[in-house]
């Protein structure tokens, strides 16, 4: 329990829209232990990116509103922090990378300017020097020089060859995979405890995806990082993560160690999701989708949000939200087939 780096409890997030209130997150529970790579999987619109953005409080409020829940980081509720203290949290404890490496770099500045900025920014937010020592501080030039050295070091860490040369290049001179490495370097500038990677390989080719995933794994070993890896690709999860949480329509519906999830998925939605991926043994016509569509978030189904599409639906699925049912060690399913506390 004390080992949890991040513990999200019953998080509810709503957005005011012209059509009504969209209940985007409706009770997310997620525990991330130190040193783990946790995969957060789900389909479009299930709230996985919203969960990721809610952790560092990057959701604009209003129109967003968090009306219930806690986000405990090392036991402290981030939702209670002052805005200025949040800035410090983002600089010191968190790194984030996103799906599209091209749009996250400014095309008008060299990698040096952007990476040095990231290094300086995290220093500014972590260093506190009493006023009377100001005169002894290194000069601005010295600080920039140190920051550049650190930037080159970071480039080496993420596997960009010839950092001293390439740091002067512009983003368009880098390939997609290399740009993603630059962004990982930026995210690592503050030596974060937690790295949130939101679909980091979705825009990349498979051979490049393999390189980036391997890099993330090696950084976990090398730096003792904890990673929240958000993806819609079950294959990526199976090969990269230690634990997995599956989301459906604003809730985590199953959380388990990676082997348990793929070998004995408990929730009917997880089972359907795994069956929908073509594997070597799928015969022609043998692929099964999940019937129906994802629910509307403004007027979601009562009870379990999956019940209208579920093949094993029970009477009370339509009225009661299922609580966590324990299936094995570390394996929880939020489904009435697995009663709470059983």
């Amino acid at each position, binding site marked *: 329990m004390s080992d949890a780096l991040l513990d999200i409890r019953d998080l509810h997030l709503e957005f005011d829209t012209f059509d009504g209130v969209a209940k985007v997150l409706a009770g997310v529970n997620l525990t991330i232990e130190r040193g783990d790579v946790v995969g957060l999987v789900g389909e479009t619109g299930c709230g996985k990116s919203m969960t990721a953005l809610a952790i560092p409080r990057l959701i604009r409020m209003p129109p967003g509103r968090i009306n219930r829940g806690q986000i405990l980081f090392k036991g402290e509720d981030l939702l209670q922090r002052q805005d200025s203290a949040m800035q410090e949290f983002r600089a010191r404890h968190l790194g984030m990378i996103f799906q599209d490496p091209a749009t996250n770099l400014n095309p008008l500045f060299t990698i040096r300017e952007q990476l040095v900025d990231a290094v300086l920014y995290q220093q500014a937010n972590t260093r506190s020097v009493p006023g009377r020592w100001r005169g002894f501080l290194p000069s601005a030039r010295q600080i920039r020089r140190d920051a550049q050295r650190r930037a080159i070091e970071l480039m080496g860490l993420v596997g960009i060859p010839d950092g001293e040369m390439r740091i002067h290049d512009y983003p368009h001179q880098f390939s997609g995979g290399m740009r993603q490495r630059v962004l990982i370097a930026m995210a690592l500038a503050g030596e974060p405890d937690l790295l949130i990677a939101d679909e980091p390989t979705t825009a990349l080719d498979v051979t490049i995806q393999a390189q980036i995933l391997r890099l993330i794994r090696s950084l976990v070993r090398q730096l003792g990082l904890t990673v929240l890896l958000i993806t819609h690709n079950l294959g990526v999860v199976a090969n990269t993560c230690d634990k997995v949480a599956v989301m459906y329509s604003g809730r985590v519906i199953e959380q388990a160690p990676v082997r348990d999830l793929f070998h004995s998925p408990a929730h009917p939605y997880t089972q359907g*999701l795994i069956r929908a991926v073509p594997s070597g043994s799928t015969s022609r016509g043998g692929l099964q989708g999940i019937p129906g569509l994802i629910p509307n978030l403004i007027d979601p189904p009562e009870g379990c949000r999956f019940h209208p599409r579920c093949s094993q639906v029970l009477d009370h699925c339509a009225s009661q939200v299922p609580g966590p049912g324990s299936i094995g060690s570390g394996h929880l399913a939020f489904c009435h087939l697995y009663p709470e506390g059983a």
Partner: protein
Amino acid sequence: MSDVLLEVRNLRKDFVQRGGLFGRQEHVLRAVDDVSLTVARGKTLGLVGESGSGKTTIGKCILRLMEPTAGDIHYDGVDFRALDARQLRASRADMQMIYQSPSASLNGRMTVGQIVGEPLWIHEGISSSVARNRVLELMHVVGLKEEHYFRYPHEFSGGQQQRIGIARALAVRPGLLILDEPTSALDVSVQAQILNLLQQLQDQFELTYLFISHDLSVVRYMCDEVALLYLGKIVEQAPVRTIFEDSRHPYTQALISAIPEPEPDSQGEQIVLRGDPTAGRPERGCPFAPRCHAETLDRCETDEPPLVTVDADHKVACHLHPELT
């Protein structure tokens, strides 16, 4: 009626990039280089490659949405490149394309009925009001409901939009469908629905597919034969089973090992290639040589390997496999 529906021979497509002062420097980018393919009637040929491998360009050249620089395209025995504009339009009804992004390929100002009915008007001169029954029948075939007729594309989910695109393509009773990454933008549960629909339509209407994709697990499920492209060249071509069980080209092997399987223990030794294809082709030698993980021979740096037949219907372009030359 021959067995081969589409035959592409020595297809080449160059793009001229201009640079320098007043665009006086020319640089020729060869996007497709000497590609030959045959697609048998009623079968599915998969074209697989990473971004920039030329797979979409091949699809567009076959439809002559883009003029190839060189090469022959024979469709059902007809020399497609010799057709004039009018004949081309008539023949195009036989080949239809389905695109990756369903929302971008549908006109947002037209209703579903108009979108699906438009090809009937263009190719057969039937106005959409008269064609209503045909359109409704097509919508039924792809799993859309009658009440969707007057709706606009933005009212549909991605999967439903892709169904609209498929109905539009089927309107003119094509023989060949060029499917350009038809499910890449969709979620897995929806992808499964669309893939099953495509297989069912293939059986129902005896369609032939050219299936362009970068996703090998989808290709394994959908295709009878696979051609792998690397920087515009075919590096290996074989029946799908052979590709997955007995691939010879180091690139194919690396791609297959890089498929993230949804199975935590299944992964054998994964081959992680160095570098990326955007570095471009080396001036001489094998285009894949700079990234190759297999033992490289001196020849790899100097001679380009030809595509040779190593087994009945298995072709490989690699110096490590000089069999049957």
